[in-house]
């Protein structure tokens, strides 16, 4: 039964090796999906290329469906799966900062590293910008810690908040995703920018 690491009682270094392998796989998949191109990523904001939302939404739903099925068949213990904790203020402000950085830099942190790995110069600058941000956050933490830790909601799950069964919530989410994919492709046609090449 999963999750693998907590049942097998692996030593910490082996956990890190597993994490490294998964990370390499993730980076490789990002690169192969074309996410190391800042044009593709920025396309999400301007509407001419909506691969980002399609890929990430599909990945989230596949993981959701997969984990629920594995839990149903007794292969995964959902109680031992980490649920990220929700700090409302931090999530809102952090989301805005992240979005602004995303459109200015053309990458999100993962894709930035993936682009750096194939040798993009702008990704190098993006990477140092990210480090500078982390440094700034750490240095100003005493000033913003009330904000960072405020409005703590704990590890909430959306379906529990709305009182929906997991199955219904998943179905609604998939339906919403289907609509979103459709709208996204309409947007791609409407905002098409033939002048922007899809080459790396």
């Amino acid at each position, binding site marked *: 039964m999963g999750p693998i690491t907590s049942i097998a009682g692996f030593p910490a270094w082996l956990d890190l090796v597993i994490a490294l392998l998964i990370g390499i796989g993730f980076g490789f998949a990002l690169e192969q999906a074309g996410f190391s191109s800042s044009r593709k990523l920025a396309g999400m904001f301007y509407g001419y290329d909506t691969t980002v939302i399609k890929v990430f939404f599909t990945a989230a739903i596949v993981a959701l469906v997969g984990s629920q099925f594995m839990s*149903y068949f007794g292969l995964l*213990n959902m*109680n031992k799966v980490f649920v990220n*904790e929700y700090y409302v203020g931090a999530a809102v402000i952090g989301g805005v900062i992240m979005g602004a950085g995303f459109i200015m830099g053309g990458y999100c942190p993962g894709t930035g590293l993936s682009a750096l790995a194939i040798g993009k110069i702008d990704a190098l600058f993006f990477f140092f910008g990210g480090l500078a941000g982390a440094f700034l956050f750490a240095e100003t933490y005493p000033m913003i810690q009330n904000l960072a830790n405020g409005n703590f909601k704990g590890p909430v799950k959306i379906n529990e908040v709305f009182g929906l069964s997991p*199955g219904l919530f998943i179905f609604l989410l998939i*339906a919403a995703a289907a609509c979103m994919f459709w709208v996204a*492709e309409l947007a791609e046609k409407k905002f098409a920018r033939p002048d922007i090449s899809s080459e790396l």
Partner: protein
Amino acid sequence: MTARQIITSILLIFGGIMLFIPLSGKYSLREKPGQVLTTVLDESNSLNADQVARFLVTEDSTLLLIDLRTPEEFRECNIPGSVNVPYAEFLKQDPGLYLDDEGMRHVFYSNGDLKSGYAQTLAVGLGYKNCFVMKGGLNAWYVTIMNSEFAGNKISARENALFATRLRARTLFNEVNSLPSSLKLAYIASKRFDPKKLDGGCE
């Protein structure tokens, strides 16, 4: 069909299946009713108060005492080292939080035999191993451990050991339960099972 339409339809099919399968399936009983009854009724799956007392004084860390009474009753008195999982709570949340550990023996107790028996039956049915009850519950504990005195004329070595164990268990019980209530509350809070304690993620 475009790639989008294919992927969307596959996902929608899975979503449709999700609507109809009971995803709370992990809470449904796995063992066959006959098997559950055999296990529960087997004498070796219940411990008497003396056995629990012996585990207590030897500080056996492979034993988890689960108190199914209400928090008020638990605050009033509890067997040292036990954790409070009120019966209503036991039914509501997934007991896998504390039962999913094959190296531990889980001993349920309540005031009498009723709730602990139900809890043991459910836990066995859910497929958890090493689930015991303390026979007679706290009532039996009071009778055998707290209030028993040797009444015969000549004490055998075995009886002597038994009463020594009872006396030590009694002392421990009294020590823990006569703590000032602030200390007691802090102690109880430190022993609560909390699903939020899992760590991980990007932090």
